[in-house]
């Protein structure tokens, strides 16, 4: 259950629409199912009351939408930002990707988002509705007579289990309470893979990445991937989009993508959330983050506006590429 | 003990890198116990660096360092000689039967005014 209610958000958004502070609201709208939430633009109060939702499935990070919406919408846009979204928000500001003047950002607390696949694993298929308003999720299924009660903690998405921050790093206004930056175990999974032998690692990723269907969802949702023209769409780049023919093609895609967002990725986890093949793509980004933290000092993209990412910076005493391999387990 | 091992052990224990020393002698220039010492702070640094540690272990200089950290504070190279002296001293008194001070020695040193602190400190410094 989210601590802040949908009604509170609608009320605040309506008030801001009414007094002319904003002209549009970027928020979540009901999809076909209760757990199927899509981003939407609301421009009047009635559509807000009709379609706006806020529940445990509102994972979508709106920061990226600001890039295009600031260009196409007239007037000021209200955007709701969960703590993790604010990092992307700042990072995009660092990269001058949208006009801050056109945006009114409201920070909202987040208790973590639910992963529908985990819910399905518990409740089975045929879910007809999910009520997120109680302590626990109440899941109604066409196969069951009475709703099944599910602990929210058991179905949190991976990124929320390892939530890095409940603190907003940007907003114009904050609803609800401010949280803290957390000590998350987000690099544990990466460390586990690092501990494997190269052959095991190769097999692990072969298994994961061979499922890739190159649908580009990861790229399209990624708040760091806001290029005017993506290299994978550019015939001159030499790596333009192709259907995967064998194991290397999609590896190359994902390495290049990870490298392009390295130092800019805020670890928002959207890539893995939207992957229809459930590939743990965020691990590639986390690998870079972990590596850069260890080699060049802690850096959190988006924590402040205007910061210099480790790959656009250097020191005279940086490790050599060979030493990066041989540095051993510095955590030991 | 093996000479090289001894040197490494002292460097590890103290966390001091004697190679950083540029031989300016400021530690010895500032040391309040200089005149009471056979080996002076800068010599501790250079002798540990060259592995010539046995003479230091046998010298009373070990027990003259006041641990006042003047050398640590004023060293332009951040070498921290007092920490090195402490490591050598510990190496000496950790050896079997090498305690410098025993409870039996104490009464002779006492007067009415001496603060407890002095006894505790001396025991810490002079015994294992």
């Amino acid at each position, binding site marked *: 259950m989210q601590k802040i209610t949908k009604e509170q958000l609608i009320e605040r958004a309506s008030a801001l629409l009414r007094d002319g502070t904003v002209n549009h609201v970027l928020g979540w709208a009901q999809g076909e199912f209760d757990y199927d939430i899509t981003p939407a633009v609301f421009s009047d109060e009635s559509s807000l009351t009709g379609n706006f939702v806020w529940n445990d499935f509102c994972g979508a990070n709106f920061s990226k939408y600001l890039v295009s919406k600031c*260009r196409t919408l007239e007037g000021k846009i209200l955007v709701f930002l969960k703590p993790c979204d604010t990092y992307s928000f700042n990072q995009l500001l660092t990269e*001058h990707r949208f006009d801050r003047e056109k945006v009114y950002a409201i920070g909202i607390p987040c208790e973590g988002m639910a992963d529908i696949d985990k819910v399905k694993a518990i409740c089975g298929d045929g879910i007809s509705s999910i009520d997120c308003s109680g302590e626990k999720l109440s899941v109604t299924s066409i196969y069951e007579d009475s709703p099944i009660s599910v602990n929210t903690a058991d179905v949190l998405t991976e990124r929320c289990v390892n939530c890095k921050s409940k603190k907003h790093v940007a907003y114009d206004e904050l609803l609800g309470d401010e949280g803290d930056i957390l000590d998350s175990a987000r690099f544990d999974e990466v460390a586990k893979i690092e501990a494997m032998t190269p052959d095991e690692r190769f097999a692990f990723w072969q298994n994961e990445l061979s499922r890739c269907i190159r649908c580009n969802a990861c790229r399209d949702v990624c708040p760091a991937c806001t290029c005017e023209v*993506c290299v994978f769409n*550019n015939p001159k*780049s030499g790596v333009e989009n192709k259907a995967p023919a064998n194991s290397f093609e999609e590896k190359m895609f994902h390495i290049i993508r990870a490298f392009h967002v390295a130092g800019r990725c805020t670890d928002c986890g959207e890539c893995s959330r939207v992957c229809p093949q459930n590939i743990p793509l965020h691990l590639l980004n986390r690998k870079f983050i972990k590596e850069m933290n260890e080699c060049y000092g802690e850096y959190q993209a988006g924590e402040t506006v205007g910061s210099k990412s480790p790959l656009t910076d250097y020191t005279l005493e940086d490790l050599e590429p060979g030493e990066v391999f041989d540095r051993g387990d510095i955590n030991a | 003990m093996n000479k090289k091992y001894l040197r490494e052990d002292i460097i590890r224990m103290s966390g001091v890198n004697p190679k950083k020393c*540029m031989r300016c002698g400021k530690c010895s*220039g500032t040391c309040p116990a200089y005149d009471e010492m056979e080996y002076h702070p800068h010599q501790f640094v250079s002798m540990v660096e060259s592995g010539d540690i046995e003479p230091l272990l046998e010298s009373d200089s070990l027990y003259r360092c006041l641990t006042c950290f*003047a050398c640590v504070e004023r*060293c332009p*190279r951040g070498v921290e000689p007092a920490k090195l002296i402490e490591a050598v001293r510990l190496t000496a008194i950790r050896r079997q039967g090498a305690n410098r001070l025993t409870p039996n020695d104490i009464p002779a040193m006492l007067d009415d005014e001496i603060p407890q602190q002095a006894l505790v400190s001396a025991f810490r410094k002079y015994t294992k």
Partner: protein
Amino acid sequence: MQRIGVFVCWCGSNIAGTVDVVAVAEALKKEPGVVFSTDYQYMCSQAGQDLIVSSVKEHNLTGLVICSCSPRMHEATFRKTAQVAGLNPYMVEIANIREQCSWVHKDMPIGTEKAIILGKAAVAKVNLNAPLTPGESPVTKRALVIGGGIAGIQTALDIADAGFPVDIVEKKPTIGGKMAQLDKTFPTLDCAACILTPKMVDVAQHENIRIFSYSEVTDVKGFIGNFDVTIKKNARFVNEDICTGCGDCVTKCPQKKVPNEFNLGMDNRSAIYIPFAQAVPKVATIDPAHCTMLKTGKCGVCSKVCKANAIDYTQKDEFITERYGAIVVATGFDPISMDKFDEFAYNQSKDVITSLEFERLTNAAGPTAGKLLRPSDGEHPHKIVFVQCVGSRCDSCAEKGKEYCSKICCMYTAKHAMLTRDKYPDTEVYVFYIDVRTPGKNFDEFYRRAVEEYDVHYIKGMVGKITPEGKKLMVRASDLLDGKQLNIDADLVVLATAIEPDKSARSLATMLTASMDTNDFFTEAHPKLRPVESPTAGVFLSGTCQGPKDIPETVSQAGAAASKVIGLLAKDKLKGNPCVASSDELMCNGCSSCEKVCPYGAITYENKEFRMPDRTTRVRRVASVNPAVCQGCGCCTVTCPSGAMDLRGFMNEQIMAEVDAICK
């Protein structure tokens, strides 16, 4: 489609000995775009070049591949050949089949096979080559020198003598800098003022030099050949053009209790002042922080006594914008603060002084009129201790001091010691040193004279603590060679303080996009080969802003910087390297990543209007590369996430084509 001609050189037997040149020419004939392929004994000879020229005409060639020696050897030659043949010089690629093939491989079939592959890679690249034309930009024939010390003075004089106008910007009311404060100079012991002040007069009288004193640079825009610089002339409340420098106002000013910065606070000046007798420009300046008239509106004495009517209490700061072709940074140095070194008791006793203060104490124009007297009680000191390396050569993690050697201290300390002993033979002089560093002409001889002839006590060891006690300074130090701790009851202690770049340098570097090292010294374009140029084109370095230097070094570097400036200003137009980065505006995100890695500040951003397919327009922030500033390293191209940034002559597509050709 290109029409490519391939020319395989034998280089006598140098190539032909291990590479079957005929086979190479034959194999490359089959490559896409190749319409002509041949081999010749010496392609770089006149006959070889003629062969190329005639082949271009005969076969209507648009691109050339020369399989020969290293491009570092003859790329320029063959580019000229192409130009003679009517081609763009950048339509030539070299396949290095000598240094990187025939000379390192022994086996003919292997060598031949590799030569063919290298040739294929070159063909693949030429297929994507485009004609390149170096950009041209005009050169404004005027130079700006920032800083009016000896470095700035010398640079300005040299440039002005070559016939170019020069402006000097100096933040103090007078030029002259640190050298004006010195007494004598090592190792010749000639008087600093005697050699400096004539130069200052030269500057003042030179028809090509303008001095902006009491001024600072507040903004720099533009690039090599065309810098637009804003200079702020601080209000000095005296009309410079009218003031005769007679000094009547200075004598009559009732506020006489202002610490005199020229004498480092060791005496006082009045609120209206001329820093020293030989100041240039010799005009008075009112210090607004201390002037009663400016603070309370009551006084006006200077205005009353000024026969020239030069006083103007209403004067405001003035901003001037000028265009310059070149900028020389000559911002100089300052001694570091002694606040964190109070083991030497600088803050506890007036009789612990810095070397620069010592210069003033011995200078005839100084606070004691050249008599060496203790600042505390005006008595003559009989025992003086000099401490070298104070704040120099410190560990980087130490919280105080500088990591580098300040270079000049050993010599000026020797000078101080010698002069003291010379003038006051009854004075005992001790110098505590870690090393005495005397590389320089007549330097070591000078130091030895101090020891041998003047009987200065040089003691190897550092001073650990100075304790003022009564009238004495108790100096505790070690004598490393004698193995003693010394306790000296000195009357005066002189600290040879480390020097650091002037504090204004950091903000100036940002304005100039010139890089600095961690100590705030400006970095050179190349430490060995381009030591007086900054990596930012058109910005040159003179004097201690680049690193610690003594006067002769400073003057020679100043001359070198001037000659670089003259070389630049002598050109009417600048021809750039055409292999520069350029950004595809349609793909650029405006994210500023490229700007962050560019060592030259060649990338700027502008908001540009784009016409959309639906006929609306949209303003977007995009990068633009100044080809006159870009040096073509390509760092930006890799940082650019969208691939909008590319490097002419080494385009992504071209390098990919080479990779493909090699890996085929």
